[in-house]
């Protein structure tokens, strides 16, 4: 029941001041006659300040403000996979069907289709006991079993079977509690779990540079900062395509519309390399392009991460990708400055770091309430202004993220992609994950990794010498090393995202580096035998 609780007293850009009673902080409200979605961000004596998620043009003083009595929520249930939502979980395809190709705003659409029929398979029967977190049944969502989770303890009185839709009761407990196929969850509240587990299994990305040099872990967090043109988006999308995850949630946060169009088209066509099913089957897209309302951009990453957590709770390995976190931080800054809060560094609010940290904490390997293991990994791109990594967003992320994959403008200019700088990047998961690779893939993994690192280090030193004396002035063994390092860079670390090579499983990664390093060792011993370098390289 939406009852009128107040009227608009002032409007300034996306911020609306209302005289209202009975509002709670972070309540979701409908503003004005056109029912724009907003969120209460501050309460003062007699007036409430509301952040509106849509264009406020045309709004006038005296129009009503209605409260939903609920915070900003997402609807969780079957039908999220292969959908495309905006930052407020409005399905963009249905929005297009209703209002055409331009988003003219002020339209409430539910994230889930309540009329769609699903086949329900009960996992419990009448008289069974369920506890919180138990699966009482599942529906088939594409190729996934979408488990439905009980939120209460009790004895099942009756349970449905066969066709259901989301607005029907599916099961009832002895105490009268009704269980539905979907529910709402406030986006800013992390979903609960029993306990967190350490992240030590690898998240295979299919990118040699990442998997071999800076491996990521399931349940870990990584940031991907780089100036424009360094290939952040291409890399994020490649990871979204090839990563070894069950479910991928991708947020296009304040980025280009054309990129999203391209991505949609590709994801429809491409196959998941791990299961050979259409890629879109395992993907949820949340899109808020740079010209869509700023406040919804701030909410979009929360909307997305809540959906990711929902699938994690079913025991899936979920990968969350956002491009780019800087746009989120900028939206936060815009909102903060509209609220006339005291600015911190570069105008960002001082709570930027703590917000980021608590956001990163939503990642992790967890034991769910139901006792299963699920993980939520995050890979987030950052767009530092001017490519300067000393700015607040990158620096705040560095304090919490487990891996730092720095994208280098000079590598990008040399058309070396992915342009991950191998000296400055790091991964705190390397130790555990490399051990895992040693066990599962090959004993040689860590030794080869060490050798590869040494060659690259040595090349950097020699490069400075070459600048002065030229290639001709080097010893044969050093010239050989330069040659090998070049091969590592060109054949191993670079990967063309537009060819077959875009995805490299760990076995292939190992084979490639092994070939190069073995050739190097053979060539070294040939050099010692007195064979000339020219002859060896031929």
């Amino acid at each position, binding site marked *: 029941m939406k009852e009128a609780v107040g009227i608009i*007293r*002032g*409007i*300034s*850009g996306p911020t609306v*001041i209302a005289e209202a009673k009975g509002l709670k902080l972070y309540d979701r409200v409908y503003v004005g006659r056109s029912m724009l979605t907003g969120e209460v961000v501050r309460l003062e004596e007699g007036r409430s300040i509301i952040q509106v998620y849509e264009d*406020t*043009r*045309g*709004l*006038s*003083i*005296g129009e009503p403000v209605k409260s939903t009595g609920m915070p900003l929520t997402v609807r969780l249930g079957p039908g999220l996979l292969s959908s495309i939502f905006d930052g407020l979980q409005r399905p*963009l*395809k249905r*929005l*297009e069907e209703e209002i*055409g*190709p*331009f*988003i*003219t705003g002020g339209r409430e659409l539910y994230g889930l289709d309540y009329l769609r029929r699903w086949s329900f398979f009960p996992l419990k029967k009448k008289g069974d006991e369920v506890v919180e977190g138990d699966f009482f049944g599942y529906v088939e969502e594409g190729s996934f079993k979408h488990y439905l989770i009980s939120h209460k303890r009790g004895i099942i009185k009756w349970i449905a079977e066969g066709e259901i839709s989301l607005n029907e009761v599916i099961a009832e407990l002895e105490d009268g509690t009704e269980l539905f196929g979907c529910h709402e969850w406030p986006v800013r509240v992390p979903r609960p779990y029993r306990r967190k587990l350490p992240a030590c299994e690898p998240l295979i990305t299919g990118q040699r540079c990442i998997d071999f040099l800076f491996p990521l872990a399931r349940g870990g967090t990584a940031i991907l900062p780089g*100036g*424009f*043109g360094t290939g952040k988006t291409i890399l994020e999308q490649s990871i979204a395509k090839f990563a070894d995850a069950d479910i991928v949630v991708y947020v296009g946060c*304040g980025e*280009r*519309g*054309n990129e*999203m*169009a*391209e991505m*949609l*088209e590709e994801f429809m066509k491409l196959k998941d390399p791990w299961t050979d099913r259409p890629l879109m089957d395992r993907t949820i897209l949340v*899109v808020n*392009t*740079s*010209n*869509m309302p*700023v406040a919804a951009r701030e909410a979009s990453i929360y909307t997305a991460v809540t959906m990711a957590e929902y699938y994690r709770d079913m025991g899936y390995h979920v990968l969350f990708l956002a491009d780019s976190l800087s746009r989120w931080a*900028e939206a936060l*800054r*815009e909102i903060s*400055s509209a609220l006339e809060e005291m*600015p911190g560094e*570069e*105008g960002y609010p001082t709570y930027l770091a703590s917000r980021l940290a608590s956001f990163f904490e939503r990642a992790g390997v967890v034991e769910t309430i139901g006792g299963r293991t699920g993980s939520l990994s995050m890979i987030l791109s950052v*767009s530092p*202004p*001017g*490519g*300067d990594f000393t700015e607040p967003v990158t620096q705040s992320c560095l304090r919490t993220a487990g891996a730092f994959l720095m994208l280098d403008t000079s590598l990008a*200019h*040399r*058309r070396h992609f992915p342009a991950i700088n191998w000296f400055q990047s790091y991964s705190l998961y390397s130790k555990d994950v490399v051990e895992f690779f040693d066990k599962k893939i090959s004993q040689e993994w860590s030794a080869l990794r060490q050798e590869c690192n040494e060659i690259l280090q040595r090349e950097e030193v020699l490069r400075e010498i070459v*600048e*002065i*004396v*030229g290639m*001709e002035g080097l010893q044969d063994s050093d010239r050989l090393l330069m040659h090998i390092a070049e091969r590592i860079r060109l054949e191993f670390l670079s990967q063309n995202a537009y060819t077959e090579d875009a995805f490299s499983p760990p076995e292939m990664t190992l084979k490639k580096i092994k070939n190069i390093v073995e050739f190097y060792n053979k060539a070294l011993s040939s050099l010692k035998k007195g064979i000339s370098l020219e002859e060896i390289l031929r």
Partner: protein
Amino acid sequence: MRPAEHSYRTISSIKGPLLFVEKVFSALTGEIVRIISPSGEEREGEVLKIENDTVLIEVFGETKGLDIKNTTVVFTDSLKKIPLSEDMIGRVFSSSFKPLDDIPLPVPEKWAPVTGYPMNPVSRARPEEFIETGLSVIDGLNTLVKGQKLPVFSCAGLPSKEVVAFILRNARIRKTDLFKKEEKEFVIVFGAMGLTFQDYSFFMKTLEEMEAPFVAFINMADQPVLERLLTPRYCLTVAEYLAFDKSMDVLVVLTDMTNYCDALREVSTAREELPGRRGYPGYMYSDLASIYERAGRLKNIKGSITLLPVVTMPEDDITHPIPDLTGYITEGQIVLSRELHQKGLFPPVDVLPSLSRLMQNGIGEGRTRGDHRRIANLLYKYYAKGRDLRRLEAIVGREGLTEQDRKMLEFADLFEREFVNQYNQVAKVSVRRDIIETLDKGIECMKRFRLIGD
């Protein structure tokens, strides 16, 4: 009840382009107001902020000559809209939407809000059709496609004006079907912000000589800054109408976005907003995106909007907020270089930092030519190698280089002189090259050094 139009004489203060009006019964955000000065002159303004019955108005024209007592403010109960008609083609307008040719405004077919609406990302079609600019560096190596936004990054003193004029004169869409009846399918919308008189006469001359149909909006350097903020929006509103209502392919050329951003900063400071980097407002990214993101194509609709903004990098610094934020939104960039300009080459485009992100989709068999990708990759590779060696040459001298390296150096020189350069010293004009000529030129350059077989 809201009165349709209501007027007040309750101004409480005037500050720069801002006007406070008190005791207003009911105003809309974004509502257009007419401000009538004591001498009877009219100008427009927009409601920016409302707090109880006090309204803050931003004036689009000059605030000179307004006073507190006798100025009337009329609230019109409508948002900022402009009249649109196909007959606008071939006309030049001022930034206050007055025709510069003294002929009355065409009869409007529809009115549309200047800020437009965001395109639904799922309705977008992916840009993949080639647009020929006539410049080899762009067509061959940084191909522009329909629906793309590709800025030109220039520095003070570089001939960005001439590059723009060249594109205005020579841009066209390649006909795949040569026998198709010539229609008004390709239109250029030209927007100039903060033009000096000298630039103005230059561009007016260019427009006169243009073959392609056009619509132009001109904002002069001495005209109000708020109109400068409106100019690109007028252009894109017209472009959206021509593209999506009239199924035309529209190329929007905006020069110079640096003037636009400076105007944005000026207005933001007047509003006493918190300044961001270098004094530019924190929302500049979103503001620029609201312009640049209007480029694109839609599924099931024939037209397209392609955007070519010009940005002058202050202090030649590509990390300055204006080029930086632009680069984060646009799909690549064309970078002009002082060094090439000093060598007397035109267009002085530095190939290495330039990039067209959407090129991959727009080239190849059926779009340009089957060997396009290969030629572009090879040219880039050899030129980059040559440029790299130039640094080494400066240290160790040409004698210290291998024969192969010397060949690369010579190739880089030839590439700049023959491929990049299109200025004919003898005829003193820049000559247009179509895509086939461009690709053949590339092959010819490489053949001379035996870098490519037959």
